[in-house]
């Protein structure tokens, strides 16, 4: 029985009848070891696997119908996997499929904006034989590489019907091409061109920005590189491709600085020195306001920047009690901001004052269909205040990644190191306040 659970996903999803209780409670089923239920209104949790840690999470960018997240695992001992989490909104069910990723442990994952089957991962590959007797070879090293993969077409039909079955061979990802350039060292992350055709990529390797053009889904061309100036072992920790300015701008983080790059000239356009007191961990662009940028870092703060005035942050949140690892703007309603931190909390904030809709919707729309996007009514309401909407404490370990769903703007997932993925909804009351 134990072994059965070892390699497998066990999950359950339930929803209480709405309005019965808004408090989260956890049930540990000790007999049936791995079944963790989180039974909350609007929250579902799934534990990927007992022995997999995980850091990499992304929404499947090209998938606009199903609510789907991709999670990459980290394990040095077992074959790593990519878990495809499907959330069935109507039945409140979570389905999971597993694809094998045997190249190495996954540090970063992102899906193509054009082709939902294509994704990239950054993985670490060690040239070191896992063998007890083997004495450490002097030349062995761990290198982070990046590659473009395609999901096998059968995974959808194959796997998720019987989750217990997955012990027998999960399908393997099909390699499209390596984004390798060993000369430039380890790759920190790979970024797709936002809203592009899935052909252009940027990888951040050590202190280089590499712009790739995919051709015929396999060949690759390095168009140009920009090198970060500076002494010592400066290297990019993360980056974000701006969706504005016709996708010609990029923001990167290294140590405590945030730098902006113009991709046409591959030159630096701004630099926020000491954006955070310590390491900058993540960045995100406001999807609606082109100069606005959110960043988070080891000083427990989330800062909002107007890149035209980089001396002072526009706003600063200090809600987390440890390093903030991830920050995400909601794709449609940029007042909603999600942050994940190694204090095991996920915080959803409502930053109305610096959003693109500081006074709520002003557009009058007669279409009152159930489609949540278009459900707008012009009502004279007072502007909302900046506030913390909710603090989610379902995680027991550090949360390294949070992500909004692409298909449903009111849904988001957060992933903690112990492999627990929690899917939450924006509170209904707030949702209606934003919409109506």
């Amino acid at each position: 029985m134990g072994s059965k659970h070892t390699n497998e996903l066990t999950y359950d999803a339930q929803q209480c009848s709405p309005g019965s209780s808004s408090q989260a409670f956890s049930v540990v089923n000790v007999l049936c070891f791995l079944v963790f239920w989180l039974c909350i209104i609007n929250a579902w949790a799934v534990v990927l696997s007992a022995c997999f840690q995980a850091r990499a999470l992304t929404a499947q960018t090209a998938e606009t119908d199903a609510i789907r997240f991709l999670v990459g695992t980290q394990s040095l001992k077992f074959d790593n996997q990519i878990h495809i989490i499907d959330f069935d909104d109507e039945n409140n069910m979570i389905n999971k499929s597993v694809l094998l990723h045997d190249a190495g442990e996954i540090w970063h994952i992102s899906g193509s904006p054009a082709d939902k089957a294509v994704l990239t991962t950054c993985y670490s590959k060690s040239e070191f034989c896992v063998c007890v007797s083997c004495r450490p070879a002097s030349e062995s090293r761990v290198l982070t590489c990046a590659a473009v993969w395609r999901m096998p077409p059968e995974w959808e039909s194959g796997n998720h019907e019987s989750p217990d079955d997955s012990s027998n061979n999960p399908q393997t990802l099909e390699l499209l091409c390596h984004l390798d350039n060993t000369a430039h060292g380890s790759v920190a992350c790979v970024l797709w061109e936002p809203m592009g055709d899935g052909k252009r990529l940027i990888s951040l390797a050590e202190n280089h920005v590499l712009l790739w053009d995919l051709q015929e889904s396999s060949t690759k061309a390095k168009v140009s590189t920009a090198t970060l100036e500076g002494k010592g072992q400066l290297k990019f920790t993360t980056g974000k491709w701006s969706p504005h300015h016709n996708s010609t701008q990029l923001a990167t983080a290294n140590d405590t600085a945030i730098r902006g790059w113009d991709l046409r000239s591959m030159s630096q356009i701004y630099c926020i020195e000491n954006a955070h007191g310590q390491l900058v961990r993540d960045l995100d662009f406001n999807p609606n306001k082109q100069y606005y940028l959110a960043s988070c870092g080891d000083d427990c703060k989330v800062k909002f920047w107007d890149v035209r005035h980089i001396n002072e942050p526009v706003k600063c949140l200090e809600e987390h009690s440890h390093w903030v690892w991830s920050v995400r703007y909601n794709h449609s309603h940029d007042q909603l901001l999600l942050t994940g931190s190694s204090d095991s909390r996920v915080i959803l904030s409502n930053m109305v004052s610096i959003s693109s809709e500081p006074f709520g919707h002003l557009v009058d729309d007669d279409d009152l269909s159930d489609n949540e996007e278009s459900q707008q009514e012009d009502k004279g309401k007072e502007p909302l205040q900046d506030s913390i909407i909710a603090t989610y404490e379902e995680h027991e370990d550090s949360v390294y990644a949070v992500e909004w769903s692409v298909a449903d703007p009111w849904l988001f997932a957060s992933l903690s190191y112990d492999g627990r993925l929690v899917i939450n909804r924006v509170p209904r009351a707030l949702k209606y306040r934003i919409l109506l």
Partner: protein
Amino acid sequence: RRNEINVTTKYSTTPPDSDPSQRRRVHSMLKHYYGLNEEGKVTEQAESLDPCDINGPHFDPEVYLNKLRMECSLGELMDHESCMVKQIRSLDSDMQTLVYENYNKFISATDTIRKMKNDFKKMEDEMDCLSANMAAITEFSAHISGTLQDQHAQITKLSGVHTLLRKLQFLFELPARLNKCLELQAYAQAVSAHRRARCVLQQYSHMPSFRGIQDDCHVIMEQLAQQLRQKFRDGGSSAKDLSECVELLLQLDEPAEELCDKFLSHAQSRFEADLQGLEAELKDSPVTDTGGGLVQKTNPGSNPVSPSSSSTTNPFLSPTAGTDILEFIDRGCNEFVSSLCLVIASYQELFINRPQEGELASKNIPEMANGKLHVFVDTLAARYFSLVERRIQEEKGVSDNSLLVRALDRFHRRLQAISKLLPGSAVPSQGTEIVVRAARERIKQYLSALQTFYHDSLTDVRQALAAPRQSAGGASVSGGGATSKDATPSLPELLTSLSNFILNQLKSVLASVHLFTAKDITFSNKPYFKGEFCSQGVREGLVVSFIKFICQSSRQYCESAGDRGGSTPPALLLLLSRLCLDYETSTISYILTLTDEQFLVQHHTPVTPVTALCAEAREAAQKLLNHYVKVQGLIISQMLRKSVETRDWVNTIEPRNVRAVMKRVVEDTTSIDVQVGLLYEEGVRKAHSSDSSKRTFSVYSSSRQQIRYAPSYTPSAPMDTNLLSNIHKLFSERIDIFSPVEFNKVSVLTGIIKISLKTFLECVRLRTFGRYGLQQIQVDCHYLQMYLWRFVSDENLVHFLLDEIVGSAAHRCLDPSPMEQSVIEVICERG
């Protein structure tokens, strides 16, 4: 009829009644009957006209009887009859008694009358004799007056001529006399003489001789007036002379308005000189005085015990070459104000309070003169005030408040004289305003002086903190513990000295400000100084603002210093935090009580309550301490982070030692412990036995670690460990890393260690380890375990975090084969 009969017949039978009240009643009834009213008593019951009223004057027995007969039955009639009889009887007896009583009086009256008759006869004779004598006297007197008539008329005529001649002589002598007076400068006599003659000469000017005299007089008087004017213009004469002069001129019909103007302009010139003298003082003083002010400003530590006692510039010795403010005001008062008073007094005497006479009264001089005087005084006072204010503004050094207060007092006191002389004037109230402004300004200066003092003290403390550290740091590279030991002992001393300095300074400032409200100061009973000055000025503007400033600046240390620890040394943060906490617990209430007592503050206006200030101070203390924890945690975190990030954990060699970084961490933690222990109490920790290090460690190392590393050998085990750790996490409390700490040593240390270990954990999770890398981590963690437990409130916290670190390292290990526990222990004990 029957009644009357009864009255007469039963007269004697009625016995005298003994009851007085009864008698009185009867008496009055009798009187009534006989038509006598008691004198002075208005008969109120107007006699009823009813003929049936037996007591009324219009009683008609016939009618009465008829009425009775008609109305009453036989029985009643009988009763009535008997009653009537009874009454009649009693009346008769009363009458008898009265007659007896008055009989004797009648007899004596008759005797007296007889005697008087005899006396009058004698007097009549004497009167006749007297009237005869009087007639004789009258006759004689008429005779005498008739003889003397002629002589009397002659004498009267002669005396009339004599007076006329004397007057004429005076007139003829007048020009000569005037000339003589002019020569002798006896102007007053001349004027009075001329006045006496003037009307007469005017009247008889048609006669040539008189005319000549008049012309002569005119010429002379013109000359005299000229001389008087000259004298008036020269102004060298005394005020008394001057007033005399003015009086004479007025009598000579000089226009009063012109005289007023002249008088005032004359006075003006003298004041001009005074004011210029003052201004000159003001002009040459700025050079030296602002210099002195600057010296004082850069060093407001006028307190001799100030820590910045490099201050050789004692303000008492500070070379202010210009006069100090007291001298200045003195001079102003003595010269300007007193002469102003004099001028006002003499002016009023001359023009306003003069007895009004003749044609002068019609010109309404006093009103005009009063108006002129007010304008004059106001303009002069305005200039004087502007000078005084300039002088007060120069008084920037907060050294000696008593001087200023005394000066202001004198200033204010002397202005009272003007108010007495000139009741309607605005000058005194303006003067009070100046005093109030000066007081306000002074409070502001004191506040800024306190603030600079506070900053200077902090700089001193900072230097004191930095100095030994630098020297020790240079001396001992190896012994980090030694450096901190050299530096730390002074911390409590620094704290007490700092708080004492601040308190003393505040007290001295309060004492100086208190001078403003001293009883012997004239303006201290003005409403401003009684109310607003105390509550709004001193309490709010000075004390509360200063406390707020301390909190504010303390908080700035948290914010401005940035997250990297920045320029503020952690020890200073710790010190300030303790300072704020002390303020919260005692100092604030002490200071405010002191202030309230000294100034008897009556809270008419809402004032900041003590609790709000305390809360602010506490908040500041908390913030500082949190920041201290953050900074110290960050320093240690940085060490750990560097040590993890820069090492190649895959290809490391087999551990032989605890890494130096860990020793450094323990050393730093120890020194922080010492540092915090100097200022904060121990705090409570969860109970554990003295050998808990060993015991818990063995549990930690043997049982738990065994389970942890089992997974590498048995395939089913990882689930168990992970489950265990998950369950453990579920039931253990969530650890807030950068959470607020309590005000005690253990809590502070716990905070720092939490931050450090969490950083260690997160860094480990980002790395990949080889076999020996893991083993090194094991050794390091064991080492930390051995030393860190003693610092924290709950050692399980350390265990838990270290477990996590080792567990994560094991997960991140390519070849997880842990080191033997015994070997680890040997390495750690050796290291």
